């Protein structure tokens, strides 16, 4: 989607962390900063983090801005501004700082965490005091104005962002604008090397969107009109976005009593002819695997979005990881061929989820979409993905004719599906092994024929160019998937800037594996660096199991909760590129 020239890593970019205790309003301020930059023609993203408290604990808005598209966080934060220092050290690992970093604190708000701030340049900004001077003023707006000014955001963009966020009629608007202005004045004359080169255009036509919203929208574009789900972090917002949207487009969302119900409701609706979806995260996904197997055996199209979080078990619900790869690929009992795809950016959550619906409907198979917390909950400025014609096209059996066989052994493996209500085609969908007609059978020949058929469906279809993102040349390749693709792209851009030729291969289609295609994609490659966010190297093992990789392999596999950093990958590429 991005041209090589526009790769991040070479672009001007600034990373800002705004922190404070709950209620200090750093999230609001952060959102305004992001939106202001977007209005000024920049790209950017914001993720949120907070302490264990359900409400009211320490919180941080982690923002990165750039004048070219970016897809993940940088190695370090340039600016840290803390409305107060409450428990800031809990974020030490999430907010890496360096000698270039500037840490801004309110001298009246307690002791700063010295270890974390060691080596940074320190600025004092009496935010509380300055706020007091503005009627109704709040420290977060002072911080916003100060930071915006330091990094060089235009006044009008910041004002516009504040107005948009609060609404023109909001009582707090004058005080907020005045607070921003006061912050800006306080920044006057403060030297700051971290200036944001402004973007081209003014952001019009771009979107501010999370991966969860993008996935929800992609699902609707794919034709989903029924969703059943049970809330779970970090998938809930996808459902919350979809619920009103679905009723707007003539569909519906049903809140189920649990995940066992939600997937079976989706299966029921799909059996009835309506493209259906459910979304969940690891623990809920685990509860769905029995019924995913039913969808495989009974050949019911359905999409399950797993917005992954750190595992195992309840793990760290608010943090990202790619460690549901194993269960998504191999977590069904019996031989149960199904499809697993993964978006590799916030924007791609849209296209890949739409594609997933298409694949499910076309092959009458369950499709798992592996998104994750870091894509799902990051709000990002993106160029809207191009419209794609990927509407689900289910092979539907038409009335008339005799002896309808629901599970007929066709060359493609796909058999036309009768939709209830159609005269003359009545059949029973079955998770027991069955004959072509659908009658339960324990005969070896029926079992083999249906196992072959269900596999054939996946072998016979052309998954098209969307199966992977392949970019660049060179004897070194980085092979990755999902949200790791963002930092990998950035690392590759840096390596290229160093003069190292590196190829990117990011797999969107994880199952069925396409070893031949991957072999072509890696043609001429001597060294493959595998990058994934798991502890045990799940992707690496999957690659070995399913593909013939004769290049030299190295793997970076790190668990959550910290994001993959482009610098770590870059370092490995550079090291490996030495002859």
């Amino acid at each position, binding site marked *: 989607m991005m041209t090589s020239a526009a790769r991040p890593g070479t672009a001007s970019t600034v990373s800002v962390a705004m922190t404070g205790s709950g209620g200090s309003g750093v999230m609001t301020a952060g959102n305004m900063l992001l*939106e202001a930059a*977007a*209005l000024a023609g920049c790209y950017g993203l914001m993720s949120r983090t907070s302490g264990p408290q359900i409400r009211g604990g320490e919180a941080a808005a982690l923002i990165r801005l750039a004048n070219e598209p970016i897809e993940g966080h940088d190695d370090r934060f340039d600016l840290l501004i803390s409305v107060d220092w409450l428990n800031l050290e809990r974020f030490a690992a999430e907010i890496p700082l360096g000698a270039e970093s500037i840490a801004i604190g309110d001298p009246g708000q307690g002791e700063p965490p010295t270890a974390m701030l060691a080596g940074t340049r320190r600025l004092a900004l009496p935010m509380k005091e300055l706020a007091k001077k503005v009627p109704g003023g709040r420290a977060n707006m002072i911080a916003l104005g100060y930071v915006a000014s330091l990094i060089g955001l235009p006044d009008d963009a910041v004002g516009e962002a504040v107005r948009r966020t609060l609404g023109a009629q909001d009582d707090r608007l004058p005080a907020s604008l005045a607070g921003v202005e006061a912050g800006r004045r306080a920044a006057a004359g403060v030297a700051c090397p971290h200036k944001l080169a402004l973007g081209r255009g003014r*952001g019009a*036509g*771009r*979107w501010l969107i999370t991966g969860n*919203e993008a996935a929800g*929208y992609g699902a*609707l574009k794919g034709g989903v*009109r*029924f969703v*059943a789900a049970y809330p779970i972090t970090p998938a809930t917002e996808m459902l919350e976005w979809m619920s009103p*949207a679905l*009723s*707007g*487009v*003539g*569909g*519906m969302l*049903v809140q*189920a*009593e*649990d995940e*066992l*119900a939600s997937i*079976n*409701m*989706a*299966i*029921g*609706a*799909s*059996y*009835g*002819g*309506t493209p*259906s979806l459910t979304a969940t995260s690891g623990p809920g996904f685990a509860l769905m695997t029995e*019924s995913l*197997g*039913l969808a495989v055996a*009974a050949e019911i199209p359905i999409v399950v979005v797993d917005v992954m979080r750190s595992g195992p078990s309840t793990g760290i619900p608010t943090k990202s990881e790619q460690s549901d790869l194993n269960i998504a690929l191999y977590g069904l009992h019996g031989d149960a061929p199904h499809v697993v795809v993964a978006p590799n950016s916030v924007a791609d959550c849209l296209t890949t989820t739409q594609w997933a619906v298409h694949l499910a409907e076309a092959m009458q198979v369950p499709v798992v979409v592996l998104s994750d917390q870091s894509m799902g909950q990051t709000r990002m400025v993106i160029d*809207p993905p191009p419209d794609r014609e990927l509407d689900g096209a289910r092979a539907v059996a038409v009335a008339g004719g005799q002896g309808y066989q629901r599970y007929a052994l066709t060359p493609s493996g796909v058999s036309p599906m*009768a939709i*209830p*209500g*159609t*005269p*003359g*085609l*009545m*059949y*029973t*969908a*079955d*998770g*027991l092994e069955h004959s072509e007609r*659908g*009658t*339960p059978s324990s005969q070896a020949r029926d079992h083999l024929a249906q196992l072959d058929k269900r596999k054939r469906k996946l072998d016979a279809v052309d998954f098209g160019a969307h199966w992977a993102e392949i970019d660049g040349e060179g004897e070194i390749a980085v092979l990755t998937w999902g949200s790791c693709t963002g930092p990998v792209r950035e690392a590759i851009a840096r390596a290229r800037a160093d003069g190292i030729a590196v190829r990117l291969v990011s797999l969107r289609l994880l199952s069925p594996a396409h070893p031949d295609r991957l072999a072509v994609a890696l043609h001429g490659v001597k060294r493959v660096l595998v990058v994934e966010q798991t502890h045990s190297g799940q992707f690496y093992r999957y690659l070995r199991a399913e593909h013939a990789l004769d290049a030299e392999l190295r793997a970076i596999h790190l668990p959550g909760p910290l994001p993959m950093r482009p610098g770590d990958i870059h370092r490995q590429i550079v090291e490996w590129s030495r002859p």
Partner: protein
Amino acid sequence: MNAPVATLPAAKDFKSETKPVWCPGCGDYGVLTSLTRALADLGRRPEEVAIVSGIGCSSRMPAYTSCYGFHGVHGRALAVATGLKVSRPDLTVIAAGGDGDGYSIGGNHFLHACRRNVDMTYIVMDNHVYGMTKGQSSPTTEPDWDNALTPGGTGLRPFQPLVIALASGANFVARAFSGDIVGTADIIARAVRSPGFSFIEVLSPCVTFRPEQREWKELARPSPVPPTDDPARAARRIMTDDGFNIGVLYTGRREPYQPEIGRPRRSLQDLAQGFAL
């Protein structure tokens, strides 16, 4: 009544050619016959009806009818049926299964289906045993019924399906007996006609693992009182009878749950506006 009566399918047209796997004498045969009669009486066509089940002897029902059928996994029939019905309100949806499927592994969906009150009918063929897995205690089994898995019995109080259905909000509650073909057909037809979630507990003997249930035909008799629309009264009656009063016991007036499926009011482009800067 203007439709040409001659074209309406008869009970036999609702039976498929698939031979049931049931043991000779199993109560489920009677339920199948009653169901096909009821569908004929209701004037439905096989393609308008979907029968959804889980796993168990009784859950084999769908394929023995000529309707659309769904034979899913153990315990999840009501969830499948719910998804189907709310997305396709034009269909007549009937869930069917056993006491193990519905009250043990499927107990949560039973609770919430009653509460949700989707317009469908749930028929449980209760034989107080897991037939399919060869004779273990189900939730409705007597506490002292001896069997290999729980020698001497489970010692547990039997689950009271009708009371729970009432307490959790089913809108139509009835008890039937598989040996009473005509009566059961009538109850099924009334259940299907009744809006909202209709629950029928059918006493359906397992002649293989509970041969003593053959005696049920001596015990079952029509309920001496007509159905009530007062749940408390219905509950009292059910709790005090001996479990063999047959008939419709409760009919409520709750509105069924059916999310509106209107014509699309918003275009996808329109939704995308929400993301635009």
